[in-house]
Structures are given as structure tokens and as C-alpha cells.
């Protein structure tokens, strides 16, 4: 619809405000990876604020190898029909046709994700061209602001997907938030050189300094496996959490999903986090990051 200013007339579908706005509605919540409509229903029932529809969770992508691509649209549709909460789906980095397909199906958010095998080793998708919003991964402030410059309406720190080891999620969140704190204490004459050094658009560097936070919502992802992990990321200062393999690769997904939701809401209340951590079955087995060869680290994908 065009710009009209008559009372009550819609003056825009798919503007940046509504794209970034949906992410604001997800804050304080848990977004869960699901591979079937039944898992999606379990996630919704547990209190997930959105689900990520995919064919294989990162732990399986890691174990099985091969090229990881966008999921079958029919399978994504099945998940969209099974729940009332927003449904996200992943496209490969740089694969704008997969993103066009996801837009055509009508998913609520596209994750341009390093968890899938990149389709372009130099360029990401130009996300401003789309009516649906995108979330992208980052390891540091420069990467976050480059993605926002390309049109990402939500950011997640990458962590190391499919490991169940929270150490990289902590490293990336601390890096982004630490760089923002440093930026806030910088006089304006230093901003251009800072922008050059981190490879970020100057206008977004300036805006981040003024806001004292990223200009869009920032979740943590990659390795969160327990209620305590979720509360840890929230206390470090992210807006919400993605949990991938951590739920449906655990011993009791129903209990664990619910416990992680509760720990994310009550992240500042150790009594509650303690109570919900009790008796929730085995956590996913996990892979210690320090045992993972550099070549197998997913977070290194993205530029």
C-alpha cells in the first residue's frame, strides 16, 4: 500500500518498524528449534514465544554432515498450520532465492543462518528487499552492524550451534555488549575510525552509541542447553534466547522446554531457577568446544 495519511488507512506493510517490532514482541522469550508439527505443539505448550522450523537440528547436521539446506516448504507449512505462535525458518547465507521461497510461504521470520551450508562465501542477502523480517547471527559488534546495514531486523549472537556448550554464546554476547560499552565512553571524533576498524556502517555505530544498545533486538543462540544457561545469557544482557538441539536432544523435552521458559522469565530469581532446574532429565550429551577442530566450527561462517 502507498503512503496515505487519511484516518485509519494503512500506510505501509512490511516497513522496518513492523519487522523490528515483531522481534520486540519476542523479547524475554524462548525460540525453540522444531522438526515436526508435534514438536512445534510441545514447544508452544511449554510457552515458547516462537518456533524455528527446520529439517534437522544443528546437532544432527553436525553428526550427519553433507550440505544443509532450507527445509521442504511443505514441512514448514505443516508446522505453520500446527501452532498459533510465530514460525521462523532458515535460509542459507547469501541464498536469496531460498529467502524468496520462505517469504512466499509466509513464514514470520527468516534466519539467514550459518547453521546451514553457506551458498555465498562473500555476500549476505540484501534483506531490505523483503517484506518479511530477517534475523542474522554475529560474533561481534562489527558483524552485527553489517547485518543490520543489510536489513536484518533482529540479531542473535552465534554461539556454537549443536554443541550444548554455552561457552561460545557467552563469548559472543560478552564481545558485542563489551564493544557497545566501550563505544559509549568514546568521544565522537573517534567513531569514524572505530567504524572503520570493526567494518561497520558509521551511521549505525553512531546510533548504537546514542542508544547504548544494538538498534534491534539481540537474542543469544548456540549451545544453550539448561535453564541455568538461559538465565546466564539473560543476566549477561541479551533480550531472549534461541534453544536449538538443547531441548529435543535431551532426555525429557517437555519438562526441559518448560523449565527453560520459566528460567528465561525469572532469570534474576535464583530460587525459581533452582526449582525449575530440578529433576528435568538428562541434558543433551554435547560436544566440548575445545575438542572441536576449527574447520568444524559453524560460527566461523558469515562475513
Amino acid at each position, binding site marked *: *500500500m502507498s503512503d496515505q*495519511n*487519511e*484516518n*485509519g*488507512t*494503512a*500506510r*505501509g*506493510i*512490511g*516497513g522496518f*518498524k*513492523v*519487522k523490528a*517490532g*515483531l522481534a*520486540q*514482541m*519476542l*523479547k*524475554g*522469550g524462548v525460540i525453540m528449534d522444531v522438526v515436526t508439527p508435534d514438536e512445534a505443539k510441545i514447544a*508452544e*505448550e*511449554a*510457552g*515458547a*514465544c*516462537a518456533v524455528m522450523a527446520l529439517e534437522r537440528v544443528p546437532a544432527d547436521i553436525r553428526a550427519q554432515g553433507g550440505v544443509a539446506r532450507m527445509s521442504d516448504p511443505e514441512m514448514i507449512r505443516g508446522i*505453520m498450520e500446527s501452532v*498459533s*505462535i*510465530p514460525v521462523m525458518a532458515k535460509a542459507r547465507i547469501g541464498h536469496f532465492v531460498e529467502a524468496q521461497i520462505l*517469504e512466499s510461504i*509466509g*513464514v*514470520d*521470520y527468516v534466519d539467514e543462518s550459518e547453521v546451514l551450508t553457506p551458498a555465498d562465501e562473500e555476500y549476505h542477502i540484501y534483506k531490505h528487499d523483503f*517484506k*518479511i*523480517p530477517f534475523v542474522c547471527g554475529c560474533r561481534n559488534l562489527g558483524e552485527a552492524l553489517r547485518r543490520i546495514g543489510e536489513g536484518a531486523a533482529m540479531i542473535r549472537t552465534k554461539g556454537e550451534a549443536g554443541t550444548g556448550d554455552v561457552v561460545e554464546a557467552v563469548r559472543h554476547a560478552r564481545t558485542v555488549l563489551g564493544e557497545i560499552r566501550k563505544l559509549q565512553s568514546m568521544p565522537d571524533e573517534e567513531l569514524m575510525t572505530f567504524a572503520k576498524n570493526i567494518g561497520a556502517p558509521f551511521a549505525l555505530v553512531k546510533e548504537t552509541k546514542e542508544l547504548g544498545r544494538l538498534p534491534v533486538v539481540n537474542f543469544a543462540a548456540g549451545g544453550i542447553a539448561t535453564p541455568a544457561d538461559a538465565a546466564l545469557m539473560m543476566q549477561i544482557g541479551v533480550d531472549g534466547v534461541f534453544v536449538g538441539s538443547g531441548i529435543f536432544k535431551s532426555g525429557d523435552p517437555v519438562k526441559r522446554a518448560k523449565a527453560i*521458559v*520459566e528460567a*528465561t*522469565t*525469572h532469570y534474576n*530469581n535464583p530460587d525459581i531457577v533452582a526449582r525449575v532446574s530440578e529433576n528435568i532429565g538428562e541434558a543433551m550429551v554435547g560436544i566440548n568446544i575445545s575438542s572441536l577442530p576449527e574447520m568444524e566450527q559453524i560460527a566461523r561462517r558469515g562475513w
Partner: protein
Amino acid sequence: MKIGVLALQGAFIEHIKILRQLGVETAEVRLPADLADLDGLIIPGGESTTIGKLAVMYNLMEPLRQFAAEKAVWGTCAGMIFMAKDIGVDQPLLGIMDIVVERNAFGRQVDSFEADLRIEGWPAEAKPFPAVFIRAPKLIETKETAQPIATLADGSLVAAQQGKWMVTSFHPELTLDDRFHRYFLDIVGR
């Protein structure tokens, strides 16, 4: 004056920021005890299923209903769903306001939009309000003393008031325009 914002999930910080800019004391509400000494409550946008489930798990439903029986409450988007008596599907609801609401009535995220709205009861010369609709619910019907206060060009009802209770299917907390927050503070002060 002290206003609480239900902080189980969703865009509660956005409401708190605007209230603070207006010089109002605020509190995040996650447990029944957090409702003590509040003059009014905002239920923010977020996922209504998530908010409802957490409210049930943490025994907030009855305390919230008791609070609303005496004090002003404003629900935005998910908050509007949560306050409704009837939404046609089964999920936890406060069920205080005499309205029928349809979830995601405008479609999915691809259909989310912005619109300029004239608000009933506001001065005729007031600028239209820049309303942001995100996977928004719609008011299908207002009953008893509930009255619609904003309507889209296609006739969709998107805001209503019933005494000290107000609902908007859009998000004033996502705009720089603080008139709805000031309007709510007027209701609280009455």
C-alpha cells in the same frame, strides 16, 4: 503514581521507558507480590499463549483479576487478547473485559502494517495516532459498557475502553508518540 508492567514476556521495557520519560515510577510484575502498591497496570505485547501460561504457572490469574476489579489496566496487542472474555479458542485468559477478540486477525507477519488513527474522545484537532500493527488481533465485538475508541478505514475495531480498562490491538510503546500513555495515566488518576 506507580504503574506496573506485566513482565512475563514481551515488550515490557518499551512501556517502562515511556512511563519513566513521563516521570512515572514503574515496576516489573512477575509474581503476585509485585502487584502491591501499584496504581495501574499495563499488559504489554508479546505472545499471548506464553504470557497466559506463565501467569497460570505463577498463580497470577486471581491476583490480576482482583487488581483489575479496582484499578486501571491497559492491554496492548497480546494484552488485549489476555483481557478479553472471549477469543474463540482455548487458552488462559483474564477474561475481565466484555469484548470478543480474534487473534492474528489481519494475517501473519507479512501482513503487519502501520496506520494513522483518529481516537474517539480525543480533541478533533489532535494529529492522528501512528499505530503499529504486528500480527495484530482485532475486536470483533464490544459488549455491555465496553466502547470502541478507534476504527480502521475498513471498519475493523482496534481499540476500546470499558471504565478503567483499555485495550489497543496496536503498539503505542513502539512509537515516539506518548499520547496513549498519557491518556492511560489520566484514566489511572481518575
